[in-house]
């Protein structure tokens, strides 16, 4: 038997110390993080804008849908206008 029980006890004490050391460092890291970056309630979702400045993604969608629609109804894209996309 290569390993003795006393060695095992030594290793165990050491390892538990290391574990507590590492996790205590982690606790302080988390506490520092939480203090530095406090929780802020997420803002209420903004009301849908009806003005020209719709979000850029919707611009894409309008462009894509317009082009498809144009292809489908056989009109040039500037002969009609999509006013609003309503997601359900």
């Amino acid at each position: 038997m290569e390993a003795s029980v006393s060695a095992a006890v030594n290793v165990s004490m050491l390892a538990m110390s290391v574990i507590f050391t590492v996790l205590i460092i982690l606790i302080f890291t988390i506490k520092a993080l939480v203090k530095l970056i406090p929780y802020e309630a997420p803002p209420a979702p903004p009301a849908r804008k009806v003005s020209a400045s719709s979000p850029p993604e919707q611009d894409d969608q309008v462009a894509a849908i317009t082009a498809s629609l144009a292809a489908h109804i056989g009109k040039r894209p500037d002969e009609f206008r999509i006013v609003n996309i309503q997601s359900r």
Partner: protein
Amino acid sequence: MEFSFSSSTQKIVNSTAFTTLESGDALMIGIACLLVYLAIWKKFEPLLLLPMGFGCLLANVPMSMMASTDTGGLLNFFYQGIKHEVLPPIIFMGVGALTDFGPLLANPTVLLLGAAAQIGVYMTLIGAVFLGFNMQEASAIGIIGGADGPTSIFLASKLAPHLLAPIAVAAYSYMSLVPLIQPPIMRLLTTKEERKIKMEQLKPISQTVKIIFPVAVTIVCCLMLPGVTPLLGMFMLGNMFRESGVTARLHETAETHLINIVTIFLALAVGSSMTAESFLRLETLKIIALGLLAFAFATAGGVIFGRIMCKVSGGKVNPLIGSAGVSAVPMAARVSQKVGSEEDSSNFLLMHAMGPNVAGVIGSAVAAGVFLSLFGDVGSSIDTHAALAPVIGNPEAGIQALATVVEVIKQ
């Protein structure tokens, strides 16, 4: 070659497994069926134990070439993924993608419970050494008390590959038995009043903190214990996929089909290492016994430290959440909830127990890291990998540095 009817018949008869089936094989097939039974009808971690049992069944059909040691066989191929430590980290990435560190971040001191529960690992280590295992073997057995399958498999494949099968079976079986093992210990070590303690509600945590946390853990823990980087780093990467909010595709894949695929291969491979030769030994019984010890002491360690935290905090901590520090996510946290609500049905400990529960995962990974720092040796890993990449560069400068230091100390 002659193919007369009689000679061919002879050949077929001789090639049936019956001619070479030994009692050991038959017994292992029985054990395989037992695992499958436990997985399906007793719901013992079925995602692991069902394919593991089936892998054991296939491996023990003589001449099937399905044992982990059958070079060229299918399950030997999957087994390479364990041997080279590829599969457990990928599973851990998926587990990270499934883990919510919110409760831990809201109450970080519960990390101490995740540390305290590791006492189970070390009591088992001492017990294993006492029973005649060497230090590496004892470490791999001890980590059963960490109650984390991939961590156990990862460490066993590094420190004691010949004990992989019984360690994996013990780890997953006892994990399933947590609802039976823990409650009596929890009731024994706490008073009725302590069990009734209601904890303050957790404060919400900024998403930014949740995103930075995995990076912080990786830097802090991996710099201190580099050996555990494959496991802990991938765990934290999975969590980044989850919390970052910009990698929904990767998050979804990591927590569903990727972890599922790897689980199938890993469990089959572990099962394929359950041959009569490696499993039907006295050591297996010892490991099964030590595993129970590990879970019991881990639970006790968590609960006792919970009582200390209860005292120190002036009664704000319910010691029942300590038992969740063994990990076995989310089973152990549910047990805390259940035992708590037995005393007072309006006591909701589940969320509070999730903190120590995930802390236990980090705790066992750190414990594995300590073992790797002490006993880790990459020799075998390099040997096997040599086949995959012949241009072996400098074999791990760090380990060499370490070896040099050890030499110096010896002198």
